[in-house]
């Protein structure tokens, strides 16, 4: 089986508390994987290590054949690993549209530089507007595009997290409790968005959730984490 991301022997302690003990997991390209576990089992710590927010005490993380254990969050995003946060941290002074544009700048800059090298007139304002408006439309935020992020509802904040994460056309999405505490409509829309990204763009994802039915409906494989160890693996 091809492997997109793999982790081997991931161990992490905070002081005397051992949170993760020798975690090993892998995600194949385009594979939807779930991560289930009770509170305090180490799910968020594992997600933080896989996304580059935390360094493990021991173990390695590989992505696309390269070791990325010490690569920071922003560099992993540019490689194609995007993550969302359990509690969104919006930009208070930016509008929804500006917040999406921030996430698009690295990819658009690369596109503009490549177009400039090819001398085909790329990198114009139209090139920048298209992907921004496309993401806003896909995530259902187009009508709120000029609203300050600080005024968004919880559902819209989660949609914005999705838009931000999808901006880099990720190969792997790491989603930390992104579908919890939402209205049925918001949850349904975001689930469909996730399925579409997986189906149409081949985006693999690692979805962390407390909700087994939701994991079963979205994931092909579910990993169960207890007391810092993966104790079971189920294929759906």
């Amino acid at each position: 089986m091809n492997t997109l991301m793999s982790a081997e022997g991931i161990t992490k302690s905070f002081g005397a508390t051992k949170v993760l003990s020798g975690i090993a997991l892998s995600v194949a390209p385009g594979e939807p994987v779930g991560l289930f576990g009770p509170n305090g089992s180490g799910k968020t710590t594992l997600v933080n290590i896989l996304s580059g927010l935390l360094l493990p005490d021991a173990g390695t993380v590989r992505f696309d054949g390269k070791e990325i254990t010490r690569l920071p969050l922003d560099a992993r995003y540019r490689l194609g690993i995007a993550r969302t946060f359990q509690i969104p941290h919006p930009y208070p002074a930016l509008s929804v549209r500006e917040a999406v544009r921030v996430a698009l700048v690295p990819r658009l800059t690369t596109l503009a530089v490549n177009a400039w090298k090819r001398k085909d007139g790329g990198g114009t304002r139209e090139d920048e507007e298209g992907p921004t408006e496309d993401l806003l439309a896909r995530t259902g935020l187009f009508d709120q595009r000029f609203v300050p992020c600080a005024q968004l509802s919880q559902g819209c904040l989660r949609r914005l997290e999705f838009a931000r994460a999808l901006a880099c056309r990720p190969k792997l999405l790491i989603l930390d409790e992104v579908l919890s505490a939402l209205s049925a409509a918001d949850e349904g829309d975001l689930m469909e968005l996730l399925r579409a990204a997986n189906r149409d763009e081949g985006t693999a994802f690692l979805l962390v959730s407390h909700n087994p039915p939701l994991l079963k409906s979205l994931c092909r494989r579910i990993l169960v984490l207890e007391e810092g160890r993966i104790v079971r693996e189920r294929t759906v």
Partner: protein
Amino acid sequence: MRDAAPSRAPKVSLRGGTPPARSPWRGGGWLAAGIGLLLLFPLSSPDAFFLDVFTTGFLLAAFAASWDVVGGVSGQITLGHALPFGAAAYSCALLTSFAGWPLPLAVAAAVLLAAVVGAGIGALSAPLAGPFVALLTLALGEIAHEVAVGHTFFSGPGGYAWGGEGGIPVALPWRDASPFSSYYAALVFLCLATFGMLLFARSNSGLILRAVAGSPITAQASGVPIARFKRLAFTVGSAFAGAAGAGFVLHVGRATATDLSLELSFQAATFAAVGGRGTIVGPAVAAIVLHVLFQGLSLPPSARVLLYALTLLVTLRFFPRGVAT
């Protein structure tokens, strides 16, 4: 190919929001009227003292706007912004007086030095956040100030006052520039520098800096290398502060230790708080108004410091986002 995917045509609607209010020309009418009045002011045959107060005010306004690039747009509260200002002032004086460099070359070198100083401050402060950035920049600024105050080469007798005796003179290719020419040169410099800073603040880099100021972790999770952008903010802000410092030393004729003082950094932060942080134009306008008001009253320096402190207190209490906003 991933990037070749066709975009969906979104249904255009303005429901739920208003068009962006961050046009660089927002409030342009008031600004144009203000600039027009300032252009006409010397025609009313004012006292040379008032022309000098306004000229200094324009240079301080550019300095305040440059503080806003760092402290407002990118949210890195600096209390050592006088360091690039003073470094440029001293290098301009040293290069023209001691090394005999032509003035344009010395000014360019001074601005470059200020940018390098800013890049250094940015590199040191990039891993820090919030009050620790303010403390680090305060410490760096005060080290430079104390070196200049304590070393007779940098600050001779009486080198503690704006334009007083002491300090290091700058070798100017002209003698006794008329107050009118100084006034107009400073006004043109202020307009050009402010326009340049506005362009930077409205660019993609400015947008990313505002994101870093609002939520560093979300910015980093959006692919932004935040340390690099913090360095960029300090470098650009310091380059403009250096340009203001070079302009200041050309106006007053000598670099003194006051050009590196905490009081100067504090003034810039006060102007930004009053004018509205992150707006660039607001701090510049506040600097002109407050400087002309307080300087025009011919108050002793200690009274002016007290007035600046009171202004800051009142603003933070009643207009936390700035008087204009």
